[in-house]
């Protein structure tokens, strides 16, 4: 087996100082290998989002090291981190974070304008991704003209358009009803079946049950890390 895609060592993230000091993440270590589907669960405030933001290089750990694709994030410059976010990871937010005034297609194309070198077929790639998530007929719709589930599909298409090595999703179904959630989860599993590494935060036990591996956090620490044999 190849080496880990993600290696987290003693990752710590502390907010505030003195009285207000909160260790949102408190010395967390684990590895993730290519092609895994990992669910991170835990009570609200247990540090799930904090961990996810560190993996996506949206935030920096106070202590510890995160190594992705063999590159230690702490040793990367601002510019390299930007390229990392653009190329290596695709991030799906709980609140979708779409540009409200841009069409679905424009939203999906957005990360491509930061790619260096740029692709010559940005529009085709974005269209392809929208087709993949089942929104080929909604490309010119603005987010406000789409349902929650459709908006999250646009966000997933946007996260995938740069062909990232890892798809990170922070409670992607948190704002959706259960039927729509199932659809989104099916989509993510389908992606994983095609080899996409997926890490997902969830509250939903059903969602967690469907994952091959579940990491449970409590008070910023990992209290369990279970891999199940899905074949059984």
């Amino acid at each position, binding site marked *: 087996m190849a080496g880990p895609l993600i290696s987290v060592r003693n990752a710590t993230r502390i907010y505030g100082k003195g009285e207000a000091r909160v260790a949102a993440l408190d010395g967390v270590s684990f590895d993730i290998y290519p092609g895994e589907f990992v669910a991170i669960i835990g009570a609200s405030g247990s540090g799930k989002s904090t961990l996810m*933001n560190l993996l*996506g290089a*949206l*935030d*920096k750990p106070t202590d510890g090291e995160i190594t992705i694709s063999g590159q230690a994030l702490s040793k990367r410059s*601002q*510019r390299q981190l*930007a*390229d*990392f*976010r*653009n*190329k290596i990871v695709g*991030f799906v*937010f709980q609140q979708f*974070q779409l*540009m409200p*005034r*841009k069409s679905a297609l424009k939203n999906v194309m*957005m*990360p491509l*304008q*930061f*790619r260096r070198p*740029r692709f*010559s077929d940005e529009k085709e790639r974005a269209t392809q991704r929208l087709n993949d998530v089942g929104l080929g007929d909604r490309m010119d719709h603005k987010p406000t003209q789409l349902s929650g589930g459709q908006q999250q599909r646009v966000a997933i298409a*946007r996260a995938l358009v*740069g062909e990232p090595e890892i798809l990170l999703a922070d409670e992607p179904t948190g704002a959706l009803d259960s039927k729509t959630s199932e659809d989104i989860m099916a989509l993510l599993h389908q992606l994983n079946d095609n080899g996409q590494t997926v890490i997902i935060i969830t509250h939903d036990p059903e969602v967690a049950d469907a994952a091959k591996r579940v990491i449970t956090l409590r008070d910023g620490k990992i209290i369990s890390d279970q891999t199940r044999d899905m074949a059984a």
Partner: protein
Amino acid sequence: MRIPGVAIITSALGSLIERPFRTALTMLGIIFGVIAVFVSLSLGEGGKERIRENLDSVSARTISISPNWTGRSSRQRPWRPFTENDLLEIQSLNGVYAATGGLDSTYTVVSEASDWSTNVRGIDTSYLKAQELVMDRGIPISDFEIQAKSAVAVIGSSAARSLFPNQDPVGQRVKIENIPFRIIGLTKEKGGESWRGRDEDNFILIPRTTGRARLFGDHRLARQQVRSITIVGENQGVLKQIEDDIDRIMRRSRGLTPDEPPDYRIFNFSANRQAFADTMRTVSLVILALGGVSLIVGGVGVMNIMLANVTERTREIGLRKALGARRSDILLQFLTEAILLTVISGIIGLILGYFISQTVADMDQMKIKYSWTVIMLAFGASFVTGIISGFIPAFNASRLDPVEALRNE
């Protein structure tokens, strides 16, 4: 092929069009700012120019000298007129536009229709130029008439109206002290009153030589050669020098020792000049204040609108960074947006400002002066406010970690 500049501008334009309300409000702020600065400065510069023109007008460039017959020195020394030689010397000074000297006195002039009390002036050929008089009809008094001591006269328009109501004065005859004069010319109306409150067009001009030989000869001022000399400088700048030169010429001509007080007086319009200069300074200050206030008002408006949007834009910046934008991508995008916005609004503002100041000027018959300085100032000011208010928040937001910027709700 992709041209990076075009892509950036297209995307910035798209971003502006996506928020039509905000874009329109911001543009309005900049446009009003530019209009206010441009109109006030253009009208102000025009006003200054008009004052400058006044300052350069003949009357503001005039110096006159006359023998001093008041004060203590008159008791010690007899009152002495100037000589034609003095006049010649003054005429040849550097910076003198015109210098004229003559004699004058008030007489009752009689025509067939009426009689009229008016100022009769014995003049030389420089007189019309120095007084800014031009002929309306007929011909001026020339060297020929002066040499020949002819009994001819040129009449001012208001004297002509009184002596020859509803008649062409040219070719008519008048009698002054019973001496008949033939009128050969009529001057154009100068209009208004002199600074002494005198009707500027009530006069009759005759050759100086004729006056000396036949008219003023019986008068109290009989033996004076040239009673007063009027000098017009080429511009404001030379007046001081001319005054100094006149002083030198007169002291020598009149045999005054350096410590003797002068027995002549030099009148100038320096008081008027000072008043003009003061007015000019006031106008400049008012314009500056107006321009400054309108600039601040416009600028505050623009900043308000832009800053009101910082939250939304900060989130956008966070999202862009999360999707892989480098800091330079963010800065370039916001800079392009701000520049586009201010340049387009600035141009609209200048065009509207032009029409507005033109209209205002037409209404109030004011003078306008458009200068590159004013255009650059109006434009530059809007540019700076636009860039500062559009760019500084983006600059700050681009420094945040993506999570921090995204958290901005």
